[in-house]
């Protein structure tokens, strides 16, 4: 049985990663699971300088999921390189750095600083809905997507994954724009914008009013978008959005995803990513799947 997958020349021991922003840099979860089991850890977004993020409340529970408006709070790329890369390198897993910025210049600054760093891939975050500049503002306009991707790609010395926003009418347009800009792979979906109101306090629950929705309730939407994008571009796709277990992960792989990320599910079950890997292996054994790639994209 072979669970290995190749994404832009980087070989992952299995197709299961952690979604950016749900797993820190793995430190917190290392108390619960063996990080050596993971195909890759996609770290929380890193900017060129520390970002304070948005005021609390940043979290709201909704039916079958949650909203967040964290706003990419992070200690900055220098701190990340000094502390988190050495921590993660203790483990036999790939490191994917999620890169965020308010402007093309800031994205480029991060990528320049990461040149030569001991990491495996970069993930360009042009899809966070919780920041007023950069983030989703870049990721929903195909012209802008191509511009930012090509600017960052020029400076990157690692394969560049571009993370797409689902908050568009036709996600294949931004997917193609990222491909034209020089993306090596795509990841999707980031969160869907959503809202919740506390009717007793007559106020939005989130301090920023609108946040990003994630969790099992978004999975059918994410799966549909992954399916569409896999047919629209020739790049490897990393699927995510409400994946909580092996059954969910296998749906994304059959829709065409080369790998999958576990996000919100880790909040609900700290061992969700490892349980997913176990479940994929059990499925492959039970149904005689020799290579995980044999079932990738089998849905026409």
């Amino acid at each position, binding site marked *: 049985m072979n669970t290995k997958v190749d994404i832009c020349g980087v070989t992952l021991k299995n197709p299961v990663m952690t979604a950016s*922003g*749900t*797993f*820190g840099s793995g*430190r*917190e*979860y290392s*108390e*619960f699971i063996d990080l050596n089991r993971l195909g890759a850890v996609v770290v*929380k977004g890193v900017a060129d300088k520390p970002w*304070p*993020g948005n*005021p*609390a*409340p*940043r*979290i*709201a*529970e909704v*039916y*079958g*999921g*949650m909203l*967040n408006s*964290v706003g990419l*709070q992070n200690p900055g790329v220098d701190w990340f390189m000094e502390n988190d890369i050495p921590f993660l390198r203790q483990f036999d897993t790939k490191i994917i750095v999620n890169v965020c910025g308010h402007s093309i210049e800031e994205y480029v600054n991060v990528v320049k600083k990461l040149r030569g760093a001991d990491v495996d891939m970069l993930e360009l975050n042009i899809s966070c809905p919780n920041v007023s500049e950069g983030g989703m503002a870049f990721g929903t306009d195909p012209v802008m997507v191509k511009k930012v991707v090509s600017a960052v790609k020029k400076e990157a010395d690692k394969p560049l994954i571009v993370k797409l926003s689902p908050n568009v009418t036709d996600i294949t347009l931004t997917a193609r724009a990222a491909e034209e800009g020089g993306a090596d792979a795509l990841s999707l979906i980031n969160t869907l914008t959503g809202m919740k109101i506390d009717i007793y306090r007559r106020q939005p*629950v989130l301090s920023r009013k609108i946040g990003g929705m994630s*969790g*099992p309730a978004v999975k059918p939407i994410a799966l549909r978008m992954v399916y569409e994008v896999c047919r629209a571009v020739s790049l490897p796709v990393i699927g995510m959005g409400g994946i909580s277990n092996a059954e969910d992960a296998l749906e994304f792989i059959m829709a065409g995803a080369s790998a999958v990320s576990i996000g*919100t599910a*880790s*909040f*609900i*079950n*700290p*061992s969700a990513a490892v349980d997913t890997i176990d479940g994929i292996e059990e499925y492959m054994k039970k149904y005689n799947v020799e290579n995980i790639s044999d079932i990738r994209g089998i849905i026409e």
Partner: protein
Amino acid sequence: MKTVENTAVASIGLLTDDICDMTLHCPEIASHAKAGQFVELYPDNGVNLLARPISICAIDTGNGNIRLVFRIVGKGTELFSRLNTGDRIRVLGPCGNGFSLSEGRAVLVGGGIGVPPLIETCRQLRGDKTVVLGFRDKSNAILCDEFEALGAKVHVASDDGSIGFKGNVVELMKSENITGDMIYSCGPRIMLRFLSDYAIERGIPCQVSMEERMACGIGACVGCVVRIKDRDGWTHKKVCKDGPVFDSREVIW
């Protein structure tokens, strides 16, 4: 050392109309728990996905139990309150840093549903203990006699005067001139804020246990932040991992 344990309800009952008193059998969590820490209870009903953070009221390492006293405020806590003895519930913990217990005269200040975590704190403190509890009214007063049984001098305040002093805990402390070497507190943010002012005026160090909406409970999601002073002004610290207990002088209220 945090774990996820499939715990069993050892006992459950109501202290008031909407305050539940539940003991869970969870030897792993109980053996690592400290006063002022909390646990995350998962509803596991397929709809309410996020764990609910509940402070630890008492730790019984001998029997491997923890006691939780919580208010029924929403769907998750309502579901927990309807569990029966022997039912299973998934719990992650212990979470956060508890109170730092020190020698000397202790003053424990609790407001409403912030009172429960002070029980274990009071039990573990060895010196002279003064407990100040504030409630909306008599029907919401909980655990007062338990603090007395732990050897503390107990003062009670209520908003309407139906039990004890009429007013809030800080007004009571002023009127009784309550002082000590360390304040341990948990309660509504507004109470903690005025208590912090009182503590600063009297030069008493004050630990405040804060709360905020959480997703993961372990520091990964960065959802539950409070503003804490630092060299460059302030920084967002996580209630679940850096707290829930903070030095009141460092909190930006």
